[in-house]
């Protein structure tokens, strides 16, 4: 377990902060400047959001800190799978002419 306890400067946190701000402003600029088509724009900004999950998990949330097996990673992966299934499944099923039904 390495928690950087003895370091005087929080390098991991500063790196995470700079990355999160950079990813946010880059996404905002890409949308504002319309650097590509709508679908491509949404895909790239969603990819940036997914990268921000990794920034928070690894640089802020100490996901690798744990005495013994990392059962919490399994729980989190399952939560992410359910979330993805609900969102992607809803979008998928509702594109089949569902707009007229409600």
């Amino acid at each position, binding site marked *: 377990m390495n*928690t950087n306890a003895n370091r005087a400067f929080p390098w991991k946190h500063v790196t995470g902060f700079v990355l999160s701000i950079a990813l946010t402003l880059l996404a905002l600029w890409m949308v504002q400047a319309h650097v590509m088509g709508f679908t491509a724009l949404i895909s790239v900004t969603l990819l940036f959001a997914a990268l921000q*999950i990794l920034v928070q998990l690894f640089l802020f949330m100490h996901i690798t800190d744990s005495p013994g097996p990392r059962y919490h990673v399994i729980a989190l992966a399952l939560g992410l799978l359910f979330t993805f299934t609900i969102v992607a499944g809803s979008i998928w099923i509702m594109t089949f002419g569902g707009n007229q039904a409600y």
Partner: protein
Amino acid sequence: MAIGHDAVLSEDDETTPLEYRHENDVLRIYGFWLFIATDLVLFGTLFATYVVLRANTAGGPSESQLFEVPIFTAETLILLTSSFTCGLATFQMHRKKHGWLSFWLVVTVLLGATFIGLELSEFITYATHGATMQRSAFLSAFFTLVGTHGIHVSMGILWMLSILYQLWRTGLNSTTARKVFVVGLYWHFLDVVWVFIFTVVYLTGVAH
């Protein structure tokens, strides 16, 4: 693992963080990860609802007519910064700097309160322009998703204040260390959820 007694795992081990030295604290941190996984599913259902209903404005205001780039950008930058300062609180806790730990928690609370203030004024502006929750399916889904996140942040502020009080009363020990660590997990998780609200709700809303 025995839950009935609180086994000391490594009392004297200086390389083990304070919050992981007792078996009960390890279990409680694991329990909180389970909560995060389930809360994630809750937000997943709200995101799914929003994405499905976003175009159903019923003749009312649409996303691009409501969302203002400077407002939601400010909200995002403030919440990202608060996640950073909350991380600094945990960092100082691991260095056993009690004063700095409390300082960064106070900064996090202040940034969180600023975020909530901005969000409330945003909601009030919408409502005074007729964009209320009952106006359309889009607005119902919008206020439910963003409002649920806002309630989470508000609870986090109250929770952090109570931990600050406990830190002031009892000092830094394995129990308060575990509480600071867990409220930090909660706060970073809410930051992740907001990044997706920023991307899926606001950026997509103004991208057309």
